[in-house]
């Protein structure tokens, strides 16, 4: 085995072909850079699933321990507001996808910014509704802690339900706020003509994050608002 392990006379480090201005020095091609960024976001979203997973696990354990208590507590959530918010988020995902599409097809900056700002408006609307709901819980003494008052049959389970409600929707809302921050940056970048068919990875990656946060809500809405047959009564 006298062969050299590697042939080092390969590709010169400084590639002969012209660089795209957005190509970072440690990548060889734009495709490699885009693939690395999107894979990075997907891996990050896996960590996010595990992050929320801890809360879903707690939800599972305590709902299994007291299904009636959870159903009873769930009745005090406002299904209408929850449903409105679900629709708002789904529409925001649509505008987000259209924003990515706009960058991908080298649409004029005005179009790109329009879709991103529309996404942000829907995101802000979601947070506004959430604020109304939270305020309502405060006035009705449904916030866990010393001021929690429950007149139903399962006060302990109800308090647990509201602990989880605030933890889960609170963590989700924090992600929405972070998403709005990211979208602000993306909107500014789009306005400055940073994105076109050759380079739109930041919009795409931010979009992945946005869709993920929406999907979390798609799970939260039924688990928190719709259990125990609201509509049967």
């Amino acid at each position, binding site marked *: *085995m006298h*062969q*050299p*392990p*590697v*042939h*080092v*006379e*390969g*590709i*010169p*480090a400084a590639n002969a072909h012209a660089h795209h201005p957005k190509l970072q*020095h*440690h990548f*060889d091609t734009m495709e*490699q850079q885009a*693939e*690395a960024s999107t*894979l*990075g976001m997907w*891996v*990050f979203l*896996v*960590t*996010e*699933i*595990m*992050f*929320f*997973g*801890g*809360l879903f*696990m*707690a939800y599972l*354990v*305590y709902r299994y*321990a007291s299904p009636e208590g959870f159903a009873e507590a769930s009745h005090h959530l406002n299904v209408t507001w929850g449903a409105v918010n679900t629709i708002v988020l789904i529409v925001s995902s649509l505008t987000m996808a259209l924003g990515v599409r706009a960058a991908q097809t080298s649409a004029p900056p005005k179009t790109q910014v329009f879709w991103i700002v529309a996404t942000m408006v829907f995101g802000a609307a979601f947070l506004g509704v959430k604020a109304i709901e939270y305020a309502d819980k405060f006035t009705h003494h449904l916030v*866990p*802690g*010393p001021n929690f008052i429950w007149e139903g049959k399962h006060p*302990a*389970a109800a*308090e*647990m339900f509201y*602990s*989880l409600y*605030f*933890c889960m929707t609170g*963590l989700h809302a924090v992600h929405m706020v972070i998403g709005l921050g990211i979208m602000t940056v993306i909107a500014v970048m789009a306005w400055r003509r940073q994105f076109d068919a050759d380079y739109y990875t930041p919009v795409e990656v931010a979009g992945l994050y946005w869709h993920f946060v929406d999907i979390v809500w798609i799970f939260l809405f039924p688990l928190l608002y719709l259990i125990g047959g609201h509509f049967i009564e």
Partner: protein
Amino acid sequence: MTADTYNKMFTMHGVVMVFFFLIPSIPAVLGNFLIPIMIGAKDLAFPRINLLSWYIYVLGGLFTLTAALSGGVDTGWTFYTPYSTAASNSHVITAALGVFITGFSSILTGLNFIVTVHRMRAPGLTWFRLPLFVWAHYATSLIMILGTPVIAITVLLVAAERVLHMGIFDPALGGDPILFQHLFWFYSHPAVYIMILPAMGVISEIVQAFSRKNIFGYSFIAFSSLAIAIIGFLVWGHHIFVAGQSVYAGMIFSVLSFVVAIPSAIKVFNWTATIYKGSVSFDSPMLYAFGFIGLFTIGGLTGLFLAAMGLDIHVHDTYFVVAHFHYIMVGGAIMGYLGGLHYWWPKITGRLYPEGWAKFAALMVFVGFNLTFFPQFIAGYLGMPRRYHSYPDEFQIFNVASTLGASILSVGYVLPMVYFIWSIVAGEKSPADPWGAKGLEWETPSPPPTENFFVTPIVTHGTHQYAPSKGVGIV
């Protein structure tokens, strides 16, 4: 030392050693540097995220330091509820936030490694030509990204419970402390593999270089890393055999804990087979590798004692457990870290350290370590419980031996620090390949240029080309 002070001391020891040393040491120090070189890349996929993870680590460290200086934490590194949420008056929130923040540095490192290995390999460097160090880090990264978020949300809930009185884990508020233990160990057992897998990767490299032989059973070692990462996620229940888990759950966790020993044993046997009939030289990195193989074997085999439910009830929460995991953590992970540091130090700094002193330090570490921790197996088996600030007179002899051993061990740890620093200032310049080792990292100058290679390498063989181990072919 009062009982309270003692509690705070062992808590800080655990928190700092686990979250701030054992978990980041090899991936951050050696992995960040070597993975790009070993795969023929110019850098990790996300250099700025790499830097961010360092800042996050420092920030988490500052939180923990604040907790320590402002009075300490007395919950043990495990932050068990309800003590940590309802009873403890110490600085739990600050320390928990320190752990939470540092977790993100770990997540970002894992994310960076995974993307780098997937997307940045040099032309021709297929998966099964990757050095085993890279495989080990890939498996480690999987644990980092899947496990760390769970501990993050768990300590966040502990903090929320202390601040907002939400009763997720506090039985007085309707919560279940066992849920905390499940969530905690779902991360913290795999975290053991975050600590040991990179060390195993280091040993796989060293054993080949100083036996002048290709690894015996390359793909078995590669897949055993993945197997450890996967099975390692299914054994957390062996930490709560006596905490109120059902007997059937206990039995399953017990069996799975035995199963995870198989891939570990595969590695030990394959290293031994690699050394067998090799042209072995006893340079300092190899001394650490020998130490690792022996001590890890003892640590692993005593792990089987603990995985057996009946025996675990006898030795649960005794010094036997303490000795067991120190054989894995110190005898394994730190031996691997020191071995790797000695092996790649000339590559990283471009300087040679005094080999004679290095051999002496390796010997000190080995002797000191065994003298410290072996007596604890006996004391623990005889019933000395852990986490008590005093012990009955009959255990005096074991504790004196441990103290003596720890003193010797400290010499072994301080020496490398001294001669490493000396080598940077006055050490002889290192050639590209001071060991006559094979692999991409030895083909570029020491220290490597900013972009690691002057030309992007094209790989046509497995990255190690020593004499083949009999009966195996790795391309």
